[in-house]
C-alpha cells in the first residue's frame, strides 16, 4: 500500500526533470527560453521531451526500480506522448507551409493559421506540465 501511495510521487519526480526547462531553469539549460519563433519553441519543447523520455526508458530498463514505480513512469509517458505528437504534427505543417509561402505557392494567411494551430499545441502542452509541478508540490506537502 505504501508503495502504491508513493508511485505517483516518484513518477512525478521523474517527469519533474522536464520542468526546470520551462519554469525557472537557467537559460543555458532551457531550450524553450532560447527559442524565438513559434516553430523554434515547438521544436525546443519536442526535443526536451525526447531527451527526458529517453532517460526515462534508460532508467526503467536498468531494472532497479520497483515494478509499480516503472509502471507509473510508463503511464505518465503514455499520457503525454499523444499531445507531444500532435505538437510535432503541427510543427511539421507550419514549417512546410512556410516553405510554400516562400516559394509563392500559398498565401500568408494559410501560414498564419498554421502558426495559430502550433501555438495552440504549445499552449496545450504547457499547462499539462504545470499540472505535474502543482501535483508534485501538493504531494510534498
Amino acid at each position: 500500500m505504501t508503495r502504491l501511495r508513493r508511485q505517483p510521487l516518484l513518477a512525478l519526480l521523474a517527469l519533474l526533470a522536464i520542468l526546470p526547462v520551462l519554469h525557472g531553469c537557467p537559460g543555458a539549460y532551457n531550450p524553450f527560453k532560447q527559442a524565438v519563433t513559434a516553430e523554434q519553441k515547438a521544436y525546443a519543447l519536442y526535443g526536451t521531451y525526447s531527451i527526458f523520455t529517453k532517460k526515462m526508458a534508460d532508467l526503467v530498463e536498468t531494472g532497479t526500480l520497483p515494478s509499480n514505480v516503472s509502471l507509473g513512469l510508463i503511464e505518465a509517458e503514455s499520457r503525454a506522448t499523444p499531445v507531444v505528437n500532435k505538437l510535432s504534427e503541427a510543427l511539421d505543417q507550419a514549417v512546410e507551409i512556410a516553405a510554400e509561402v516562400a516559394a509563392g505557392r500559398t498565401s500568408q494567411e494559410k501560414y498564419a493559421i498554421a502558426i495559430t494551430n502550433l501555438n495552440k499545441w504549445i499552449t496545450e502542452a504547457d499547462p499539462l506540465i504545470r499540472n505535474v509541478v502543482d501535483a508534485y508540490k501538493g504531494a510534498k506537502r
Partner: protein
Amino acid sequence: MDPLSLILLSLSSIGTIIQNPVLGGGSSHKASEIVDLLAVLSALILKGHEGMEELKAFAAHVKTMADDGRAPNRSERDAVAAQVADSHRRLQQAKERILRGESPIPDGIPDDSPPTTGPDDPPLPEVTEE
C-alpha cells in the same frame, strides 16, 4: 564537492542512519521502504543530472537556430521524432515484460557479471582477433 554529489551523499547518509539501530534508526519494514525510496530518488536525481547535460547541448543548438533565424529542418525534426518513438516503444516493451512478471531489462543486454559456464555446459567459444 558539487551540489549533485552532496545531494546524493545526503540521501545515502539518511538511508544509512534510518537502517542502522546503532545510529538511532530502526530495521522495521517501514524503514526499509524509506531506504528503498531514497535509493530510487538518488537514481532519479542522477538520471536528471545526466539529462541536464544533454539539455544544455540542446539549448545551445536551439540558440544557434534562433540566432540564425531559421526553423528546424526536416532532419532535425525527424531525429527528435525517431527518439520519441523509440523511447515510447522501449517503455511499452518494458511495461509488457513487467506485466508478465519478467525483468524490464531488454533481451540481449548483458548483465555486468562475466559469463559463466556450468559443469554440463559446453565451453564458451574463444574470442579471436582478426
